[in-house]
């Protein structure tokens, strides 16, 4: 099933629903409806009642007519996935899904009618979107269990327009690189500094030093916003940014080898915790992992890089224990 689906609906960032990826089948109500029409036909025949026969044929005709219109409606749907923010394992991912069509206003806005039900493939819980009343993007949450790059399960979109007789659905497989960071676990361990001396003076630098305000200089585009001297800006002055003391001695080196007394996954979690702490304290830090090392740096990008590398570490390491 999975293989067949992969062949039919390959991985993509954006989908335009069409013949190749829409499935359509009478819904449960549709099947009842047909059965009831059959019953009316038998009743009409037995009573020699042409009006009943007409009613039965009328219901069947409605069934036929809505087949194409429900397909045509669903085929208007265009869906693409947005950028997903990484989360820590155990938290819920919020997958932004964009429904609709932005760049082709050539035609009447392709408005899909009827509630759209979105759920993860083979999951019962679904969220219901009213196409006349929703805002892009639609956040769809996905629980995470463990770190690493996760494969999004297929997302099922369902629609029953116009009369609920047919279920139109599709299982979309969105292409998206989503990294789930390890769960941070607090630790009392102190990172060793760049010089490799354990229990050195760099320990206090974890607590202080990073917020040491030094001087103001004119703001350069690209500098972090929290460095902007808002007081000066508010007074109507030029945009200035604060500079901080860059304590060379406070550069910290995080090494996974240090965490030999806890198991591998806990070590990764504790490292994650430390990375977050250091990033918060604006300390320059580097990461030494069994696979590769990351040279010291600071800033959000550096933090994300470190967290990503931690997340992507192989699940089991032979070197440990």
């Amino acid at each position, binding site marked *: 099933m999975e293989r067949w689906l992969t062949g039919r609906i390959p991985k993509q960032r954006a989908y335009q629903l069409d013949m190749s990826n829409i499935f359509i089948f009478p819904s*449960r*109500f549709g099947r*009842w*409806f047909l059965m*009831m029409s059959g*019953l*009316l036909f*038998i*009743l*009409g*025949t*037995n*009573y*020699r*009642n*042409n*009006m*009943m*026969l*007409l*009613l*039965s*044929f*009328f*219901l*069947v*005709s*409605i069934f*036929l*007519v*809505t*087949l*194409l*219109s429900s*397909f*045509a409606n669903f*085929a208007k749907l265009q869906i693409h996935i947005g950028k997903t923010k990484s989360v820590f394992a155990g938290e819920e991912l919020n997958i932004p899904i964009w429904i609709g069509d932005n760049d082709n*206003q*050539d*035609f*009447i*806005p*392709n408005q899909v*009618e*009827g*509630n759209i039900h979105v759920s993860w493939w083979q999951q019962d819980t679904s969220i*219901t979107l*009213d*196409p*006349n*009343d929703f805002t892009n993007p639609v956040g769809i949450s996905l629980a995470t269990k463990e770190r690493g790059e996760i494969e999004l399960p297929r997302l099922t979109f369902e629609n*029953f*327009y*116009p*009369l*609920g007789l047919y279920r139109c659905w599709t299982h979309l497989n969105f292409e998206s690189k989503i990294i789930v960071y390890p769960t941070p676990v607090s630790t009392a361990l102190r990172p060793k500094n760049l010089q490799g001396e354990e229990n050195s003076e760099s320990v206090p630098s974890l607590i202080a030093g990073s917020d040491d305000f030094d001087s103001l200089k004119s703001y350069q585009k690209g500098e972090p916003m929290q460095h902007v001297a808002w007081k000066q800006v508010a007074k109507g002055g030029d945009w200035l940014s604060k500079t901080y003391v860059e304590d060379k001695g406070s550069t910290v080196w995080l090494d996974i080898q240090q965490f030999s007394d806890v198991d591998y996954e806990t070590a990764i979690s504790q490292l994650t915790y430390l990375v977050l702490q250091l990033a918060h304290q604006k300390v320059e830090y580097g990461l030494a992992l069994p696979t590769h090392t990351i040279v010291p740096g600071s800033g959000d990008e550096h933090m994300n890089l470190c967290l990503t590398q931690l997340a992507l570490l192989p699940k089991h390491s032979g070197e440990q224990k």
Partner: protein
Amino acid sequence: MKATNAKAQLLIGISFLLLAFSMLTTVMTWVLVLVVISVALQALPFFKVDIHHPSVRTINLFAILCALALAYTTWQAGLMIAMVNLLVMACALKILQMHTTRDYFIVVCVQFFLIGCGLIFEQSIFYAGFLAFVATLQLSSVAFHISPSRPLQKQIWLSIKISLQAMPICVLLFLVLPQLSPLWKMPSSQSKQTGLTEEITPGDIANLSQSGDLAFRAQFSGNIPAPHQRYWRGLVFEDFDGKTWRISEARKKMKRINYRLGRKTSPAYDYSKEFKYDVIIEPTNQQFLFALDAPLTTTRRTWLSPDFQIQSTIPLVTKFKYSVQSYPNTPLKGASDYFDVNMNLQVPETGNPKTKAWVRELRQQHRSNEAFILAVETFFFTEPFSYTLRPDLMPFDPVDTFLFDKQAGFCAHFSSAYAYIMRLAGIPARVVGGYQGGEMRKEQYMSIYQYDAHAWVEIWQPGIGWIRKDPTGFVAPDRISYGLERALAYEESFLEDSPFSLMKWRNTAVLNEIRLVLADIDFFWSKWVLGFDQERQLNLFRLLVGEIKPIRIALLLLAILFVISLFLLLFNYRVWFPKINNYPLHFYLKSLKYLAKQNIVRARQETPMAFYTRIAQQLSVQQRELFLTLTEQFNQVTYQVQTPSRERIKAMRQTLKAFKKSL
């Protein structure tokens, strides 16, 4: 399972209410009350009234009580009525606990089925129109369920649109899908037999005559019988107990045997005079049909019984159409005279002493049958008999009371007395019930109403057979020639119990015209829709494919399938031809598509003008000019906020055409 939409629930409630009340005669009053309560309770949330809904256990308990009550109250009414009531009741209870989508859809399905049930009892075009309205409400309700935030008008328009699209397909299916014979016998409502019944007590027909309902319609091809020839034979009563005439048990048994043996009655038809006609009879829930004497029918599921009565093989629960040829000059003479004669000489031993004495005396004076009959008729002519719809009650010795005391009665009194006199005198006689008269509409069809119900007498003449005698005609010749209204003009009792019947206003030209046009519509409807049967279907096939062969029918069905698919595609042409909203943009994008074929592709962020300047060198002079014009035209409309007038769009289309050609 999500909660259903309040609007959808409200609409389904309203349609249920309409539906239940339209079946007023079928659905029990207490069930109707239940319907009203459940719909009201269910509608409360819509009006922002919060009530504590009854728990499932309460409703289940209540349901058991209702089922018991239903079993008790519908015990007598027959299975079909009981089933319909059960369905309505179950639906009402389900509406009370319509919590999940599943519940809701069950209610919808049951209601569509109830529409079908409504059609068992009534099939007029007006009721059909009403049901179409109810169906639209139901479809709109479902539409609300599927897309809750669309406005009501849009939902109704959607369901009307879908219904209209379904119509042609529905008609095609109706015309070509085979009309099957009933698969098995269905329960019918026993209690609601209408029209004439299997026994006749003087006074009964008088009640029937208060009804302006249609009994049947006949469409003649060729000769139309004159008013005094319009004797529509229905039932033959041969058993008399001094008061009531009944269909004789012996006759019934004989008919059953004849029917089972497939023994057909075929009198010696005299083809010198012929009436040819189709009859569409209203449902009576009985099996006898009406025809002029002496009938010959070839319609399926009918047969002619030895008393010259056309019978249907199943009770008429719906309108039924049959074709008849009548040969009025045919002597009504069956296969066994002996049986007919003996059965129709039987008189009760007791009762009506005065009549007995009078007949004995008269018979002594007139030994020959002809003389005796003449004497009796003279008696009717000379005595002050009157024809009335308001006869006095005659509970004891009714014939005596009628002949010698009251001397005022309705056709059944006259016929009963006449036939009794004949039997006492040793002349076989029987009473025939049926209709006499009929209203012609523009030479097209004849309508026979319930008030045309009539009873007359047949007497046996050796060698000739049964001869019709209508004693009512002796007293009220207007009844035979002009109908009931004229005959009763002196006492103004015509349809006095139904003051609002349009029939009553026959003398007001406008109202009468309305009544006749309504009758025309009903006739058309009965003939073409309700009367469509295997025979007509085969005729239609013959018309379409000529001689009927399996291969031709198969081809016809294929063609119909093709037509249906064509319809379906046509209804959704927008899938292939989307509605173009912004023509300038559409044209510009088209030109980009043409260029893309030449491997000239616009970058995503490039403005039209920038794109033009970049690619200008790759185009020929003519192409360059055209594309520049196109780009400028697009820019004017899009960015300089000029309204895209028709001329502008036209100009752009032409430029695009030229540009395409130049590539």
